[in-house]
C-alpha cells in the first residue's frame, strides 16, 4: 500500500499548516494536541482561525503567541479551574486596560452540539446540520450563522448550523500505522468528524504500530490513512492533557495555569521557557522530568481481546 507518511512535527507543521488557515486541534479533555500547538507557535504561524469546542490552555497559549486572528468555539475556559487570560484580554476590549494594545480576537460562537454538527456537516458534505437547540436564546442573534430551518413535513422548525471544513485538522491518538490508519479508545470527542471535514490531516500518536496491529481490530480505527497527510510520533505529546491508558491528566499544571495566564508578562515568560526555548516535545518531556512523568502513569486495566475469526 502507499508509502510511509511518518514525519517530524517540525516538517509536518511546516508543510501542512499555512498562514491564514482554519486549524482545528480537537480532543475533548482527552488527547489534546499540545505538542502540535507548541510547534505552530514556534514556527510563528499567523492569521489562523482556530476552531475547537473547548479552547482551553492550548489555544490560550497559541493566542497569546499571536498565531490567531479568530476563534470558533463553544466553551471558553480552563475547566474546573478558571479563565483563560490571553483570550480574555483580547475579547474584553472595553475594560482590560492592559489589553488595549493587544489585537482584538474575533469570536464565532456555538454550543457543543452546534460545533459537533458543524464538523459533521463538513465531513458529510452537507450544506447544514439540523439540531434541536438554540430555541428562545440569544445565541442566534449573537451569531447570524445559526439559522432556523423548517421541517418539510410540516411539523415545525429546528435550528441549523453551517458546515465547518478546516484547512487542517490535528488529531492526537494512541496509535497509528505508517500510512495514518489511526486508532483511539476512551473519549472520542469529535476528532473523527473534524478529520473527515478537513482538507489536510495531521495525526500525532503516542505509538507507531505495524499495519497488522491496526488490521487485527478494524472496529477501533477512527481515521483511515486515506485522509491523513502526516503521521507524527510524539510520545507524551498531549501533556498536560491525557491519553487513556498511557498517562493521566496533569492537573497540577491546569491549576498553575490560572496564575500564569492572569497577566501577559507571566504568560509570555512561560512561552519563552516552555515553547520558544525548547526545540520540540522531546526537550519538553526531558524538562518536565522523569519523576513528574512517572507520577502520571496509571495502573493497568486491559480491555480484553475479542475474536474476529479467520474466514478463508
Amino acid at each position, binding site marked *: 500500500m502507499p508509502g510511509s507518511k511518518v514525519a517530524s512535527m517540525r516538517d509536518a507543521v511546516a508543510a501542512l499548516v499555512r498562514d491564514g488557515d482554519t486549524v482545528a486541534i480537537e480532543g475533548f479533555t482527552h488527547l489534546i494536541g499540545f505538542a502540535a500547538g507548541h510547534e505552530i507557535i514556534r514556527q510563528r504561524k499567523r492569521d489562523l482561525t482556530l476552531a475547537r469546542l473547548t479552547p482551553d490552555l492550548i489555544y490560550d497559549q497559541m493566542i497569546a503567541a499571536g498565531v490567531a486572528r479568530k476563534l470558533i468555539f463553544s466553551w471558553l475556559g480552563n475547566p474546573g479551574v478558571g479563565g483563560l487570560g490571553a483570550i480574555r484580554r483580547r475579547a474584553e476590549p*472595553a475594560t482590560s486596560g492592559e489589553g488595549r494594545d493587544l489585537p482584538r480576537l474575533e469570536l464565532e460562537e456555538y454550543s457543543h452540539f452546534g460545533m459537533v454538527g458543524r464538523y459533521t456537516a463538513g465531513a458529510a458534505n452537507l450544506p447544514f446540520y439540523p439540531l434541536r437547540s438554540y430555541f428562545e436564546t440569544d445565541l442566534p442573534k449573537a451569531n447570524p450563522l445559526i439559522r432556523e430551518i423548517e421541517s418539510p413535513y410540516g411539523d415545525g422548525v429546528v435550528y441549523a448550523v453551517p458546515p465547518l471544513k478546516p484547512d487542517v485538522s490535528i488529531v492526537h491518538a494512541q496509535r497509528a500505522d505508517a500510512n495514518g490508519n489511526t486508532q483511539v479508545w476512551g473519549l472520542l470527542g469529535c476528532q473523527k468528524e473534524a478529520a473527515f471535514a478537513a482538507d489536510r490531516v495531521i495525526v500525532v500518536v503516542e505509538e507507531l504500530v505495524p499495519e497488522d496491529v491496526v488490521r487485527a481490530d478494524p472496529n477501533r480505527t477512527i481515521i483511515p490513512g486515506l485522509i491523513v497527510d502526516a503521521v507524527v510520533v510524539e510520545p507524551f505529546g498531549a501533556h498536560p492533557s491525557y491519553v487513556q491508558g498511557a498517562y493521566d491528566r496533569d492537573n497540577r499544571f491546569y491549576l498553575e495555569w490560572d496564575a500564569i495566564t492572569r497577566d501577559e508578562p507571566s504568560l509570555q515568560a512561560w512561552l519563552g521557557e516552555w515553547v520558544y526555548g525548547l526545540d520540540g516535545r522531546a526537550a519538553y518531556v526531558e524538562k518536565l522530568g522523569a519523576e513528574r512523568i512517572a507520577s502520571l502513569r496509571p495502573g493497568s486495566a486491559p480491555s480484553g481481546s475479542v475474536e474476529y475469526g479467520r474466514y478463508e
Partner: protein
Amino acid sequence: MTADAPAGAAAFSKNEMMIVAAARELAGQRVCFVGVGLPNIAVNLAQRTVAPELELVYEAGVFGARPARLPLSIGDPTIVTGATAVTSMFELFSFYLQGGLIDVGFLGAAQIDPFGNINTTVIGPYAEPVTRLPGSGGACEIAINARQVFVIMRQSKRSFVESIDFRTSAGNLGGAEQSERIRREQGWLGRGPSVVVTDLGIWHFGEDGEMRLDSLHPGATLDEVRATVGWEPKVADSLGTTEAPTAEELRLIREELDPGGAYTR
C-alpha cells in the same frame, strides 16, 4: 466559611450544604447529565447515597460512568475506565440528549432570572463585553432536551438578577404560560428548570414559572436571601429548613470524593 450549625451537628461549609442538598434532589432520578464543577461532586455523592441506580452521562461521551475517584474534569480518564459505554459526542448529543434519554440536566449559571433563564455568555453587551464568560458549552441544548433541569449556584446580587444580560439557556422564559406554550408548539422534550440549589437554600418553580424559596439552609436567614437576590423573591408559606448534612454525607465528601477540598472549601 463554616455555617452556623445546629447544636450537636458537625460543622459544615456552605459549599458542603449546597452539594448535599443538590445530591438529595436526585433521589428517584435515573439518568443524569453531569456538568463541570459542583454538579460533578453532587451527582457522585447522590450515586453513593440517595440514588444508587443513578446513571451518569458525561457530555464528553460516557454513559454509566463509575468513577473510581472524583473526576478532576468532565473528561477525566476515570469516567471512562469501567464505564458501560463510551461514544462519540455526536452520538451522545444526538441519541442520549436530543433523543430524550436524560432525566436531569445540571446547569450552573453566572446570572439567573426569576424564571430560571440562564446567562453563561457575557456580562455587558455581547459585542463589547465587560466580562467574557465561558459560553454555552452544551447548556443551551441541555436546557431544552433534558426532561428537567437542576441549577446549582451561589446567590448574589450579581448572579440573581431581574434581567439577565444574555440568554444562553432557556428557562421558563417570561413565565409558565409562555414557557408551556412554546415548549408544546416547538416540541421541546424538556419541562424546564425544576430546582435551584444555592449556598443559602432550595428554590423550586411555582405554577407561575417563577422560582420560590422552599427551604433555607441551616444558619441562613431570609434577610440574607433578600440581600442576595435582585428582585423581591417569592417565599413558600411553609418555608422549611434544609436538613443539615449527615455525618455520612460529610464523610463521603471529605474522605472519598474530595479529600483535597477542591470543591468544598
